[in-house]
């Protein structure tokens, strides 16, 4: 579990994250939603310690990140996996070499076991047979899947995904969402996903946090979204006619019951 207390992150004089607190639970898909530019990526990178923060604290299983030295942080990071917005595959390496990379760097496995693990992970994301391809030869959806395979190679306790659906068509998006959800439940991972895709929210949002201008504007789950009268949620979520209509119908039917 990850606990965030009053996180503050500035760039120069601009406060981008202005005091966010949140808990992220194991075996759950935790979603951070918000408009583009609201601070999702900065928040996530601060959680991971990729940015030095200007205030607050982050606890990994109760242990404060600020008190971890260089070495302890590195061990913690071997328990983390991350899927970046642009996939961030190493483009000089093949699919297989990308996935095996963390294993070669950190595990004591013998070569054959590493190969098995790579094939398992690639199988898990339905990419059998793509082992020898280079990232440049893959479609956006395939790259995301390789990135997921690489992120789960080390059996992470924590999985972070920054807009895993950006640039994907709706069908592929749902495949990726469900994949992340299944993996989360299967291995009891604490998963945090940044997204502004409402389909994902309604599909997999166990615990949803809405960020607006660097503040936490709302927290709840996908069922709450349909009933809440929080203005920020309604403004962010129900932007289209279709979604507003869905909410009206939902409220009408729940009043009737």
């Amino acid at each position, binding site marked *: 579990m990850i606990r965030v207390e009053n996180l503050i992150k500035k760039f120069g004089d601009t406060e981008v994250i202005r005091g966010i607190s949140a808990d992220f639970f194991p075996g759950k898909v935790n979603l951070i939603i918000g408009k583009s530019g609201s601070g999702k990526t900065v928040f996530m990178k601060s959680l991971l310690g990729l940015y030095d923060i200007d205030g607050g604290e982050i606890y990994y299983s109760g242990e404060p990140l600020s008190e971890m030295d260089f070495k302890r*942080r*590195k061990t913690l990071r*071997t328990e983390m996996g991350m899927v970046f917005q642009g996939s961030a595959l190493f483009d000089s390496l093949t699919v297989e070499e990308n996935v095996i990379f963390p294993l*070669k*760097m*950190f595990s004591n496995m013998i070569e054959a076991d590493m190969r098995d693990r790579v094939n398992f992970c690639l199988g898990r994301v339905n990419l059998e047979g793509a082992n020898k391809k280079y990232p440049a030869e893959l479609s956006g959806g395939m790259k995301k899947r390789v990135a997921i395979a690489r992120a789960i190679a080390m059996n992470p306790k924590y999985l972070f995904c920054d807009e895993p659906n950006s640039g994907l068509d709706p069908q592929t998006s749902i495949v990726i969402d469900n994949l992340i959800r299944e993996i989360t439940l299967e291995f009891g991972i604490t998963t945090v996903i940044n997204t502004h895709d409402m389909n994902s929210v309604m599909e997999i949002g166990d615990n949803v946090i809405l960020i607006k201008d660097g503040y936490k504007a709302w927290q709840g789950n996908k069922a709450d979204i349909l009933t809440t009268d929080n203005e920020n949620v309604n403004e962010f979520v129900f932007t289209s006619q279709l979604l507003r209509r869905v909410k009206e119908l939902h409220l009408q039917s729940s009043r009737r019951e």
Partner: protein
Amino acid sequence: MNFYKYLEDFGRYVLMLGRVFRRPENKKMYFEAFLIEIEHLGINSLGLVAIISLFVGAVVTIQTALNLENPLIPAYYIAIATRESIILEFSPTMVSLILAGKVGSNIASTLGTMRVSEQIDALEVMGVNSASYLILPKIVAAVFFNPILISMSMFLGILGGFVFGQLTGMIGPQDFIEGLLLEFNPFYVTYALIKTVVFAFIITSVSAFHGYYVKGGAVEVGNSSTKAVVSSSLIIILANYILTQLILS
């Protein structure tokens, strides 16, 4: 063009080196990366360095010969002049400057692209010390391989002079060899190789600094590679002056 900006950059450069020179998390992986860099930064430059050295050696010999057309000056002086200019300056300094262009821009753009496409973040999240894993093998490869490149350059430069001197009829083989051996100071080679090692360190670390800390996108990556070449060249020239003062005077 602001003094504090340079001071700040220098501070960040020193901090980066502090991160580069840490114990590798996996020696085998670092060694593999080192071998790849030997190929990228070293072997791939062999052809370029060879051709340039041969022809510059030839030109130095011909130019000296043309300028020394005086019957009172013995012909072997041409060989001495070729030897001294190739060993002392052309091979260590000029070839290093050429490598600063070729290797420096390559390092900066590779690292810059990895930065803006979040590949460096991906390494960090895995727990890899990205500065060390990406930069240390490049520095070590260049510091190890450039002396080989430069020694080859010295040899080929002098060979170029020898061959072209003969082909143009400006200096015969006996005179050339006599000149080469006359008052030859082997310490000059040591001096040249010391410079080479320092320059190799400058080229790789300064270019890596510019690439590693890129912010932004493709345009900034391009700018960083220009900056890498310009600043490593300037620092080489400055270091050349300082080293010459320190070692030869």
